[in-house]
């Protein structure tokens, strides 16, 4: 069953067509990577799913119910993490989650339990200060906590890792991975390595249309390439392979000596 399905969705701002006849469905219990460049229409699509923006035409259903603009009925199935989540800076994280819980209609005792559980899941259980003093990474984690509060069937994350440092990114991805199975996650980003790390389904949005859609393994198989990468323990081995290739009259089109990536170095240095 699809948790979210979008049928021939269109959205234009004035003359400018942002979404062009977009159709796709998100199967249950997947992490659905929603890729695209900046301005491809990812946020616009998500806001329409949440009923915050009015589609020019087309329909959206969440858990079998049609989304109608301006109403928030279908949002009870959804947890949403905005790209830059904004909170009431004068509140403490616990107070904020309790407010969110009361709005969703959970009873007070359950809200407190659930909030405490989520705060420790996202690692904010010791941050007992006003949200106004939070760093961006902390806000992002609180954002995940508030999105998971109503145990949503569908968790929509709009570029949750784009503004974070590599460690913050890894932590957010780990949290998302840990809730997989309990909830379906739609995860928009333009950071491809994040997608490879956690997503099992990928859709690529380009100029308001889907240009690629399928499971990650399917997509990778369909584009099997003649490329391979080898790593050796010693420089010697590398020389021998190259001479072996030469003996066989095989000429690689490209041979490259790999340097450690900056990410590897960074992660090692700040460990």
């Amino acid at each position, binding site marked *: 069953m699809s948790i979210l399905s979008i049928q021939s969705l269109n959205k234009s701002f004035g003359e400018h067509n942002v979404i062009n006849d977009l159709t796709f469905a998100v199967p249950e219990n997947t992490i659905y990577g929603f890729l695209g460049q900046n301005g491809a229409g990812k946020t616009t699509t998500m806001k329409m799913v*949440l009923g*915050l*923006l*009015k589609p020019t035409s087309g329909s959206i259903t969440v858990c079998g119910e049609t989304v109608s*603009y*301006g*109403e*928030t*009925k279908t*949002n*009870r199935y*959804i*947890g*949403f993490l*905005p790209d830059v*989540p*904004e*909170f*009431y800076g*004068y*509140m403490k994280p616990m107070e904020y989650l309790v*407010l*969110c819980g*009361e*709005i*969703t*209609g959970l009873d007070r005792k359950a809200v407190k339990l659930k909030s405490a559980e989520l705060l420790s899941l996202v690692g904010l259980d010791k941050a007992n200060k006003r949200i106004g003093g939070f760093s961006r990474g902390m806000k992002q984690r609180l*954002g995940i906590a*508030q999105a998971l*509060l*109503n145990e949503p069937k569908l968790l929509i994350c709009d570029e949750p890792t784009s503004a974070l440092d590599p460690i913050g990114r890894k932590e957010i991805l780990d949290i998302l991975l840990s809730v997989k199975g309990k909830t379906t996650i739609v995860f928009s980003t333009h950071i491809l390595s994040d997608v490879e790390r956690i997503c099992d389904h990928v859709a690529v949005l380009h100029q308001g249309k889907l240009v690629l859609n399928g499971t990650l393994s399917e997509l990778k198989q369909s584009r099997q390439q003649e490329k391979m990468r080898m790593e050796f323990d010693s420089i010697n081995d590398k020389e021998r392979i190259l001479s072996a290739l030469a003996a066989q009259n095989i000429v690689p089109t490209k041979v490259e000596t790999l340097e450690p990536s900056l990410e590897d170095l960074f992660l090692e240095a700040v460990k």
Partner: protein
Amino acid sequence: MRAFIAFTKKEITESARTYKLLIIFAVFLLFGMLNPITAKIMPELLSSLLPEGMTVTLAEPSALDSWKQFYKNMSTQLIIFVIVFSGVVANELSKSTLINMLTKGLPRKTVMLSKFTSATLIWTLGLLLCFATTYGYTVYLLPGKLPNIIFSVFCLWLFGVLLISVMLLGGVLFGNIYGSLLVTGGFSLLLMLLNIAPKLQKYNPYLLSSGNMSLLTSDMAAADFSFSIVITCISILFILIGALMIFDKKAI
């Protein structure tokens, strides 16, 4: 209903923690004390300022002078109130703090009604504070019995509620503080302009903030305000419904 209570509570917490409550209560209390005191010392002050040898007979200050100060200063207090609260809708829209709330299933109508309720509550408490202070000091400093005291302040209260609904409408329409202030200012100006036509005066909500002294001097009776009160109540209702409908259709 639970969402409404939770969000209204949030609004009040916000007012307290962002010092809005403190500012309003401090200003209203200060004016409440100043009104009777100014009325009491005004004649002495004036005579001390006059050149020596010149005598002007000034009437003994009375309770009426104190209430005159009260209603005169109230227009300033209303302006301060509107400025302090002009951001309640605008800030949430411009900082997108509402997104988390709305995507949790909080109905948009509840947001507006909570904001209206909390602003009205604070206005009511502020006005009561100022009224009670002025009342107490006046009884002590300038005793005297006056008619319609409660009704007269009720009229002013209702006018304040009207301005609150206009302020919220402005915030919804423009999504920023200036829009909210401009709409409230423009609305007040419009009422004042309408007041030039004598035939319209008794229907004009403006009467509720300008005719208060006539009630105390018995130049006007409570019944003279009935049209204005009815029109004001209907206006509040329509402005609120309008704000709700526009907010429902607003892209956030």
